[in-house]
Structures are given as structure tokens and as C-alpha cells.
């Protein structure tokens, strides 16, 4: 599935033009990206949370040459799945 499939679903649901729907989908992901870039977390209930994690500088090794290298301090994006979706995927929703 790619963005085009999401646009098609939205087109069927809203009845807006495909162009407008594409704009909506793009804006949706832009909002999330902008938020994460500002180090703010994004929580989508029933789906999961996206959050920015700070990683300290550490020593690493080039796995090919074995050469020791410095890994600089950096920020990475992590995703934590919602328990609801986790259960849904594993068919545990009906208890």
C-alpha cells in the first residue's frame, strides 16, 4: 500500500476530487513530520505513538573493517505500537 491507495480510500469516503484528497493526505503526514521535527511526540490513540529519542555519543565499529569509529550524539524516531492494535493484529480483541 502506498499513498495513492490512501488517497483512493479518502476519495471514496469524502467525494472530494482526487487532487484535493491527495492534498489532504500530504498535509496529514506533513503535520506529523513538522511536529516530530520540533521534538514533540505524536500520539494516535488506537494506533501508536511516534516519539523522538536522544541518543548519546558512543564508540562503534565498522562491521566490515573492524575499525573503531565515533558515533556522534543524535536523535532518532521511534514508534511504539498501541496495545489495542497489537491485540487486533493477533486476534485477541475479543476476550
Amino acid at each position, binding site marked *: 500500500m502506498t499513498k495513492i491507495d490512501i488517497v483512493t480510500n479518502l476519495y471514496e469516503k469524502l467525494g472530494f476530487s482526487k487532487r484535493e484528497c491527495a492534498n489532504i493526505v500530504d498535509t*496529514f503526514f506533513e503535520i506529523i513530520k513538522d511536529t516530530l521535527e520540533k521534538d514533540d511526540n505524536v500520539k494516535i490513540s488506537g494506533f501508536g505513538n511516534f516519539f523522538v529519542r536522544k541518543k548519546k555519543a558512543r564508540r562503534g565499529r565498522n562491521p566490515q573493517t573492524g575499525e573503531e569509529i565515533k558515533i556522534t550524539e543524535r536523535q532518532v524516531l521511534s514508534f511504539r505500537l498501541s496495545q489495542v492494535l497489537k491485540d487486533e493484529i493477533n486476534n485477541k480483541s475479543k476476550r
Partner: protein
Amino acid sequence: MNKMDIINKLAADINVNQKIAKIAVDTIIDSVKKAIINNERVEIRGFGSFTLREYKAYKGRNPKSGEMVNVEPKKLPYFKVGKELKEMIWKDSI
């Protein structure tokens, strides 16, 4: 930022009312969810991709009691950050 904030921001950005923005956000999230549940790979250019990974059963321990437990096989989605977003977040820290 939560779903409500996204809906409000989307409504303002594309100039529609909240009701339509809510339908749009729900539809987008639902589409992604359904695809993941159906074991379909989801790829959003510039953002990231989701793939469902299968994990085998294993014997684990309850971290609190130390008791042995059987962990059943399970499927969990893996999110891989897209290159563009990865670099955006990374650069931020320098």
C-alpha cells in the same frame, strides 16, 4: 500532539470544517491499520514504512516474579523511518 490536535491543524491548513477533517484523519489511519492487519507493506514516501514481522514462540520470564512463561507466536508491525524524516530529525540535534 494527539489525534484531536492533528484534526484541528488539518482543518485549519486545508480550510475545511472539523467534521470533515475528522473523517479524513480517521480514514487515513484506518487505511494504514487495515493494510498492516492484512499483512500488507505500507510505504509512505518521505515518512516511513510499516511491515508486519512474525515472531516465534519462546520461553520467557515474568520480570517481576521471575516465573517462567510461554510466550505465544505473535505478529508485530515494524516501523522503518524514511530517509527524509530520519535526516530531518537527526540534523536537528547537531
